[in-house]
């Protein structure tokens, strides 16, 4: 108590003597969430300014006689003639573990009614990404629990993998599944069931979405026990364009705190198409010149400086990482529109979701041919590499052959075998939502497929076979699954054990 009093005492003493110098201006007009201010001759770009009513703004346009600032917060409380003053601060958000389990807005204020957030630090929204010396290449996996992704387009910690597709093709679901999978792994790691496990904390940034969508995501994450490891940053469609434009940067700042402290974070930006639209709106009301599709010229820089902040840093720098899963919505599958091409060229690969596949019942509707991961395979564990190495090729060949096979019935034995195999892989990769599969079960199932255990099972029974097999392994053959986890590879000994287990299982399955 006495130290607090002393503290206040010194602060008062400081105030007695000091005269504060500040730089002020006068609001000339406001509209569309933007204030034009005369004066403010010393303001810096992206500096936070404070209006006389206490509302804060962000200086974005510095002109000869005027400053254009976006108003963050209640725009109705900023009026013509109000005084605005510089604060010398950059806009920052609270960061740290206190944010886990919370739903916050763009400036980190709680939206979930669970009381104030006692954050240990705050970070500026805009920060320069780690340089080349501090970075290292990706070598640890992000297990999404989605078999098609983990096997064919693996994601590593520090990677930026785009999820792209038309509306309602299951883009958000993939991201949510990945978050749920991390929560399960984190929990297992806390209980000491995984060796050398590094927890992965998740940040879900919802930009320009319906409030009901955000509420649904929250409910799903909550029901699956993922919220203790997750922060939701929400700037829904009803929020101002300025807040929507800044929300991903707030999420990135929160993720960076984990990276700077030697931990790993996963950020989902759902979605950057709406983010670009919000930025376009902000730019237009600030009267900045517009370019292609009326987007401002610096929209590429906007997304690249955001996504460049995901990185894996070296051991000397703490070894932390930020992984980004940006989402882009296309119109009628057009990936050559402005924003999609931009983000495709920035990221380290993409997961392309197809409407046709989605309605054929292939869910998640991942297009094998158009999905790639440029760096993730370096992070795959050996067990998956062993069983999944050829799958992408098999599947691509199958798609090609299947198109041919529609016309003729005379197929040679080799082609027929490839078609059969392909159909079974497609079945295996179908997966219900919110149901991530642990990597060891994925390895076992794919091993069974590679070694022909599924060839005699009719296609329509594959899914049932897979579910029962996973069940069987989990309940009766825990030892095998555990040794896949610890060995991270399938050696001779494991192969014989797996073969025995599968023979036993097949004899009971009909």
């Amino acid at each position: 108590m006495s130290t607090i009093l002393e503290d206040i005492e010194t602060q008062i003493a400081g105030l007695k003597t000091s005269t504060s110098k500040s730089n002020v201006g006068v609001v000339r007009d406001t509209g569309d969430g933007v204030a034009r201010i005369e004066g403010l001759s010393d303001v810096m770009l992206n500096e936070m300014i404070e209006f006389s009513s206490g509302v804060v703004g962000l200086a974005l346009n510095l002109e000869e006689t005027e400053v254009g600032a976006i108003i963050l917060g209640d725009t109705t409380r900023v009026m013509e003639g109000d005084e605005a003053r510089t604060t010398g601060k950059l806009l920052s958000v609270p960061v740290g573990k206190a944010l886990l389990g919370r739903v916050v807005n763009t400036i980190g204020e709680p939206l979930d009614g669970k009381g104030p957030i006692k954050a240990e630090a705050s970070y500026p929204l805009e920060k320069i990404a780690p340089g080349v010396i501090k970075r290292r290449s990706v070598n640890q996996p992000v297990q999404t629990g989605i078999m098609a992704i983990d096997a064919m387009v693996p994601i590593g910690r520090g990677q930026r993998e785009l999820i792209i597709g038309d509306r309602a093709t299951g883009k958000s679901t993939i991201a949510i599944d990945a978050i749920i999978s991390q929560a399960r792994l984190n929990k297992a790691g806390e209980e000491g069931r995984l060796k050398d496990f590094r927890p992965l904390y998740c940040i879900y940034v919802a930009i320009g979405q319906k409030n009901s969508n955000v509420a649904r995501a929250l409910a799903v994450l909550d029901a699956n026990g993922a919220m203790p490891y997750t922060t939701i940053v929400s700037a829904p469609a009803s929020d101002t364009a300025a807040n929507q434009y800044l929300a991903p940067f707030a999420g990135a700042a929160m993720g960076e705190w984990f990276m700077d402290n030697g931990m790993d974070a996963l950020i989902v930006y759902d979605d950057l198409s709406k983010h670009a639209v919000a930025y376009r709106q902000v730019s237009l009301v600030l009267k900045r010149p517009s370019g292609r599709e009326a987007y401002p010229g610096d929209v590429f820089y906007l997304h690249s400086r955001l996504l460049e902040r995901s990185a894996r840093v070296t051991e000397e720098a703490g070894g932390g990482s930020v992984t980004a899963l940006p989402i882009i919505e296309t119109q009628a599958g057009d990936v050559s529109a402005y924003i999609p091409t931009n983000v495709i060229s920035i990221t380290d690969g993409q997961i392309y979701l197809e409407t046709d596949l989605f309605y054929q019942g292939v869910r998640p509707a991942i297009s094998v041919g158009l999905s790639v991961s440029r760096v993730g395979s370096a992070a795959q564990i050996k067990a998956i590499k062993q069983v999944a190495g050829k799958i992408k090729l098999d599947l691509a060949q199958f798609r090609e052959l299947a198109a041919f096979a529609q016309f003729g019935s005379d197929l040679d034995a080799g082609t027929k075998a490839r078609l059969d195999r392909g159909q079974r892989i497609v079945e295996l990769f179908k997966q219900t939502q919110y149901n991530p599969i642990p990597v060891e079960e994925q390895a076992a199932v794919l091993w069974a497929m590679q070694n022909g255990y599924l060839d005699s099972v009719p296609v329509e029974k594959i899914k049932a076979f897979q579910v029962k097999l996973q069940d069987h392994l989990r309940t009766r053959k825990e030892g095998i699954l555990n040794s896949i986890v610890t060995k991270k590879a399938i050696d001779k000994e494991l192969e014989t054990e797996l073969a025995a287990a599968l023979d036993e299982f097949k004899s009971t399955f009909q």
Partner: protein
Amino acid sequence: MKVNKEVRQLSRQLLRASFTDGQLDGGRVTSLVKSLIEKKPRNYIGVLDAYKRLLRLEVEKRSATIESATELNAEASAKIVDNLKRKYGPDLATEFVVNPALLGGMRIRVGSDVWDSSVRNRLQRLQEQL
């Protein structure tokens, strides 16, 4: 858009021509305005408006407002004016205002710079810090 640009350029040129020896010259301003009205170039009303605004900003940059909670005595005000002129140049215009809302102390504004030693400001800062 085009018209706007012309207006901006012309008004800026006018402002640049309004100075003698780095100081705003009233006589020049009047003659510039008179000649503009006589010549009536395209959109001259808009130019005059923009010119007026630039002049206002220029004048604001060179004028000081000294607010105090109570009336200052002649000696103190002379000293303040003297100090400000030394810092900002002899052409600085000064204005004294009594503002009881400050509670005590002074607040001096020159252009967009503000020095605030008022009690109100100290209380506000204390509130922010606690």
